[in-house]
């Protein structure tokens, strides 16, 4: 049975939620599930904006069928070809054989690669091409590398709706809600929205900035992303977050403490550091054991906070593997402009710290504090003092900012 909601006149949400999926892209945990958003415009022509993942295809198809009734589906606008949105294209084509696909040139090529025989039905559009469906006239804007090369966003000039593809999306199933103003976003959603952006899109900050510049000139009233809630109020709140994230600027003055500890000695150092920081007035701290925390959460907080303390044991003369993955992922996702304290531990040849510094050195504008600490097996008075010195250095560098 259908499960649809009206967004504004002529426009309906026809997507669906999946709480059973464990890992998004088979990598990022989904404790709250996810939504696959699709939108149907019922104008003189009927227009579907993107499809949905195969796992929710039945609900998605029932939603369209219900809203269309006897009408044919005239157009399918494909903004993004990643299979969590494109997987059901084939089924839509089979059910609505007369539908015309509107997409970018690259999306058309990708459809071919994914095995959808639709070349004859594709209408390729370019930057700023427009189309009228009756009352509604839309303009297409290319958004390459946000976060795939074929991505295109569509703006409805008539009602101010921006179909933003994966931009402005989030993890999390909707649970009946549709609009961001129906939830306590800061309390229940921002963490997952950040985790979504930073792990999925953050590498492409410059391209997101280009998209934001394009969007800046449009009278947007609704943002309809492919995951998560629809925005119709306080758009500035979320756009501002995107602006910060894509410029790699921290949201908050605070410290992410991530430690890799095998037998608790490095963990002890992390605790002392956190303890010292709090005593010196810095309480905005998030602390994680990298072995127990999925990397996507670490990345998310690395983007959130201005400072980071990385404490790692040395493992086979290298950085402890989960910490190594974290540092490499940070570099892969283009994280920049953070201040980092580094502590290493080792019993015979501690060098995790210097290896972490090598990674950080390759990244842009990552400032490593001069104060560092090498623990030999476990803390003693002098390394304890060094940890306190690191806390001082973090406090000082926060003051400087």
């Amino acid at each position: 049975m259908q499960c649809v909601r009206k967004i504004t006149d002529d426009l309906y949400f026809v997507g669906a939620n999946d709480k059973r999926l464990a890992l998004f892209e088979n990598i990022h945990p989904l404790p709250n599930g996810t939504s696959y958003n699709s939108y149907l415009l019922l104008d003189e022509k009927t227009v579907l904006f993107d499809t949905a993942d195969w796992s929710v295809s039945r609900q998605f198809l029932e939603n369209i069928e219900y809203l269309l009734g006897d009408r044919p589906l005239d157009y399918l606008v494909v903004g993004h070809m990643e299979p969590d949105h494109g997987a059901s294209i084939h089924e839509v084509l089979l059910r609505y054989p007369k539908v015309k696909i509107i997409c970018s040139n690259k999306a058309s090529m990708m459809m071919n690669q994914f095995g959808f025989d639709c070349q004859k039905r594709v209408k390729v559009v370019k930057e700023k091409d427009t189309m009228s469906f009756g009352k509604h006239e839309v303009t297409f804007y290319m958004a390459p590398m946000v976060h795939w090369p074929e991505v295109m966003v569509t703006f409805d000039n008539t009602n101010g709706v921006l179909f933003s593809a994966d931009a402005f999306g989030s993890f999390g199933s909707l649970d009946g809600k549709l609009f961001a103003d129906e939830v306590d976003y800061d309390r229940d959603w921002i963490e997952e929205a950040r985790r979504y952006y930073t792990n999925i899109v953050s590498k492409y900050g410059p391209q997101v900035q280009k998209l934001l510049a394009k969007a800046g000139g449009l009278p947007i009233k609704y943002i309809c992303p492919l995951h998560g809630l629809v925005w119709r109020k306080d758009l500035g709140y979320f756009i501002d977050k995107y602006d910060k994230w894509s410029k790699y600027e921290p949201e908050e003055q605070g410290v992410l403490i991530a430690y890799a500890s095998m037998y608790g000695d490095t963990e002890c150092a992390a605790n002392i550091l956190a303890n010292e920081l709090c005593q010196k007035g810095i309480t905005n701290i998030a602390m994680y054991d990298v072995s127990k925390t999925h990397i996507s959460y670490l990345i998310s907080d690395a983007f959130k906070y201005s400072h980071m303390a990385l404490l790692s044991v040395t493992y086979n003369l290298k950085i402890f593997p989960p910490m190594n993955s974290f540092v490499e992922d940070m570099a892969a996702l283009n994280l920049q402009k953070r201040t980092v304290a580094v502590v290493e531990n080792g019993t015979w040849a501690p060098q995790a710290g210097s290896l972490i510094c090598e990674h950080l050195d390759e990244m842009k504008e990552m400032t490593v504090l001069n104060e560092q600490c090498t623990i030999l097996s476990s803390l003693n008075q002098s390394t304890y003092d060094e940890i306190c010195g690191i806390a001082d250095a973090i406090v000082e560098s926060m003051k400087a900012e």
Partner: protein
Amino acid sequence: MLYQTTEQHEELRNKIRAFAEEEVKPIAFMLDKNNDFPYDMVKELAKMGMMGIPYEKKYGGAGLDVISYAIAVEELARVDGGAGVILSAHTSLGTYPIYAFGNEKQKKKYLVPLCKGEKLGAFGLTETNAGSDAGGTETTAVLEGDHYVLNGGKIFITNAPIADTYVIFAVTTPGIGTKGISAFIVEKGWEGFDFGDHYDKMGIRSSSTAELVFNDVKVPKENLLGNEGQGFKIAMATLDGGRIGIAAQALGIAQGAFEHAVEYSKERVQFGIPIAHQQINSFKIADMATKLRCARFLIYSAAELKGHHEPYGMESAMAKQYASDIALEVVNDALQIYGGTGYLKGMEVERAYRDAKICTIYEGTNEIQRVVIASHIIGKPPKTESSTMMQQKGPITGQRKKMIFNSGTAQERVDNLVESLKNDGYDFTIGIDPMTPITLADRVVSAGKGIGPQKNMKLIEDLAYQAGAAIGSSRPVAETLKYLPLNRYVGMSGQKFSGNLYIACGISGAGQHLKGIREATTIVAINKSKNAPIFKNADYGIVGDVLEILPLLTKALDNGEAKKQAPPAVKMHKPTIKKEASPWTSYVCNGCGYEYDPAVGDPENGIAPGTTFENLPDEWVCPICGESKAAFVEVQKEEEE
């Protein structure tokens, strides 16, 4: 063909030799000992018409060939190596670029007086970070209306500060390596053009060598030599010819030493016969003579090629490299033949031994000569890391705050400095013995040549007392000026300072000095030249005259009480310096997200590091996904706040 010089060549040789023997030889020892420049010799050479030998008569030259020029240098160097290089640097380096690349107006104004010997010429290419590799040039020339503004400095400049006319190389288009270098004619005496250290050299001490400093020197647009961007080409063409001069100089030095050794070996009797006839020495003499003949032929051949406008770059490099390499061998053997007598000051072979060494180093080290020769044979090597990348390594003393107080009155600048130091935790109520060894001192106030006459050292002593510091200096202040004992100069070759506070007064910041203060927690620079390298290596700086600033600073640190004994020094933490954004502008590919970083280039596709995105060839495509240049977008940088 007969491999011989002409009668005219030998007549010229005799004329110069007679002059050298009569006028230069008698004073050579004193010139060497006192580091004196032979002004009279240069005047006499001008009268003889020898300051523009290979240049046309219409420009005031002698209209002779290049071999004649080589012979003149050889004959002067035969009695004094320094005398040889004065002529060589003037003729090949100072004059040639104007002759070959100047327009008629420039030639009339500058070439004629140079050829006539009314003016002395010099050539400024070498810098602290640019020697063999001119791509590291940091001196800049910025076009402002009808003139260029020149800033930076040059080191090891032969004939400076005596010379009147300088051909100077500076970057007019930054970021594109040697293609962005241009050449300028700069006159001594122009505002902002100063001379730094006169070097206390091992040899060729009659030749003057100094550092050039340019502070906002206005160079008229018409003094650009050739076109913008041609500088590297001009420099290389000039050095091609300059090598003949240096080769001739090496030959002359070795020839002189050889002749002395032969003479001495005939006089010196051991075991009943002149040592010349002992086989170990006779063979030595045979080898020396053979090497000299080889070198001479190489030089004259290169000179002849040049005179006939044939390609001669490889041949002149061979001549320079070979002549200077064998010169070292010949002077070594000559001194060996002299034995202990040759080891004494005042002996020509002793001077020749020292003079010869420079010939393997300057105007292209012999290593570079081999690069040149090899490149003629096997082509240029594939491009690797460029010098423009190396520049990114930053200052010698590591990342520093570089807070330069240059606004407000002198008093305000001093107050700002003192406040910053106090905020960093420096306590100025304590003091130490000003003669505490540099290596043990927690703070040092150091004097450079900018301090001026010795009486001004009182300013340093007063400041050191109030700052709770020991007294140190730059190398020339201890070694040349002798204001302080040698064990108080700071630098790589002197004492290393690893304490907390280093206050450099009138020190420009030569590389070797900066390497001695790398470990300092805080470096303060006070210098009147805003382009002094010390400012890039300092945490705090005041641009101003030490004579004005030091008394104010001393007063500002004075609390009116005697200094308390300083507690044992504790090394303070160096402040973390925020990592700066790359100066390069990156571009990202809209097809795949690949980032083109000019600092890295695209070596696999033949794009050298240092190539800006704009300068990528039009046919260049994304190395990852094959998108064209048009599919790239610029990575926007933060606006300066």
